């Protein structure tokens, strides 16, 4: 038999097409790129008013995780909900499923360009914060990298779950709100968990995006104990596994009729 396709080859072909589409979707691109770059810095005066120094943090240590959090929420999660929903309603997903691509490859390949955008943005944000906010070099970069990667996979999987309950691209603006709002307020994106009352903070630690932000911030401060780091990793992993399971169980490949 002539040469069979490989998962990498199939993923690459799909990701390349999706990258072209991302470049042509001005609205998605604008939300995905601009919000994470602009929004956190508009928070600057607000952060300046917080007693961040007292908790052993600096403005940079609040703003960088916030910016990466926004990149994950808007650049990856919200953007992907729109992409998955559009592809399903255009019957693209159904058509792809008739071919050699496996289900996971279809969802993964579709998410790759957005995920790569998220990584590039995070790198730009790190560079920007280092230069503009006098952010020191990270003490435990491996924790930050792990946090970011887990965050990307988790956000992609949660986007697929959200797309399952999103009927049209327009309604994606509503269906994405719960996760975005909860994460922004209670996962340490805008307000560091360190500044919340202890009892509230210990509940908020269990939210999906909290361990991601904790790991990224901890990667810079280097103050996470092994126990805390493992706890955050376990929480993030648990949410990711749960989301992936939910995708396998509930994802819709065709429009409802």
């Amino acid at each position, binding site marked *: *038999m*002539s*040469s*069979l*396709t490989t998962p990498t*080859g*199939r993923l*690459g*072909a*799909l990701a*390349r*097409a999706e990258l*072209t*589409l991302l470049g*042509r*979707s001005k609205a998605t691109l604008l939300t995905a790129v601009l919000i994470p770059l602009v929004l956190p810095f508009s928070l600057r005066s607000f952060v300046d008013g917080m007693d961040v120094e007292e908790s052993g943090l600096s403005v940079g240590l609040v703003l960088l995780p916030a910016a990466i959090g926004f990149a994950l929420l808007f650049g990856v999660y919200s953007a992907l909900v729109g992409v998955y929903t559009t*592809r399903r309603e*255009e*019957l*693209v*997903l*159904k*058509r*792809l*499923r*008739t*071919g*050699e*691509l*496996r289900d996971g490859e279809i969802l993964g390949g579709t998410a790759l360009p957005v995920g790569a955008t998220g990584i590039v943005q995070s790198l730009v944000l790190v560079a920007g914060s280092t230069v503009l906010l006098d952010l020191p070099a990270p003490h435990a970069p491996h924790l930050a990298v792990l946090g970011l990667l887990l965050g990307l996979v988790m956000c992609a999987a949660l986007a697929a779950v959200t797309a399952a309950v999103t009927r049209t691209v327009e309604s994606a603006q509503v269906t994405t709100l719960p996760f975005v709002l909860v994460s922004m307020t209670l996962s340490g994106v805008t307000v560091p968990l360190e500044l919340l009352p202890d009892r509230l903070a210990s509940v908020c630690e269990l939210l999906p995006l909290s361990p991601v932000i904790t790991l990224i911030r901890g990667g810079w401060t280097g103050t996470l104990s092994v126990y805390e780091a493992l706890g955050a990793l376990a929480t993030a992993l648990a949410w990711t596994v749960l989301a992936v399971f939910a995708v396998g169980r509930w994802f819709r490949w065709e429009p409802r009729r």
Partner: protein
Amino acid sequence: MNTDEHEHVIEVTGLRRVYGGGFEAVRGIGFSVRRAEVFALLGTNGAGKTSTVELLEGLARPSDGRIRVLGHDPYTERAAVRPRTGVMLQEGGFPSELTVEETARMWAGCVSGARPPREVLELVGLARRTGVRVKQLSGGERRRLDLALALLGDPEVLFLDEPTTGLDAEGRRDTWELVRALRDGGTTVLLTTHYLEEAEDLADRLAILHEGRIAATGTPAEVTAAQPARISFELPHGYFVGDLPPLAELGVCGHEVAGSVVRLRTHELQRAATGLLTWAERAGVELRRLDVRSASLEEAFLGIAAREEVAA
């Protein structure tokens, strides 16, 4: 690999598909398709054609029954089947913002042993539209793009769900030519259609689906052979069916009268027509709107639909 000419490439037994709401779209059907054969599933909208084809393509798990495509279960052994099949869904599914060429290139990256995209686009007459975005294609062009992608991997088995819906007469003929050429080259083709002439012209064998069951199956000639021929005409004012020679003697097996219009059904078309015309000649009667036609797939099709209605 078994290359026996008479090998059954598709085998279906006792197939059922029940949707979540409890609707039973496919109610226990069975058929088989040999290598290098064009097999048509014919039926009205809602007969269960697409529901059946989607199961053959491996898009869903059957509620009951067994399917073998190239010797494998298309749903559970997807990886073994997919590299050898090509699929064209009833409604395409391509990102509207990609160009024809970008779409074909993407698809080529996901097909084992893909031919150069340009080659298949040329085959379906889209060679000059490669730079056009999918959203700007006409409905017919979109169908042809879909067909091109189904052909990319030189599949052994081709599933075409209503391949010519939305095409103009010329486009339809081109597609028929292409399907015939593929069949002659050894490709097995399973297609659905609600165009009777398409099935009659193109299919080596066919099955007429009606309400989720196979109502008739065989070669087009076999399916039509069981059907009566038809004679219809209008009697002039003052004449009635009773004025005709005894119908049974003409070999007529059934008749209907609607106002002055008379329809006769017969399995002996020449005898019935001769008897009728001889009578008209002698009586000096002009049979207006005279229409004499031998059995066709259309008759078979309408006959099946009518029979089921009476039975219901």
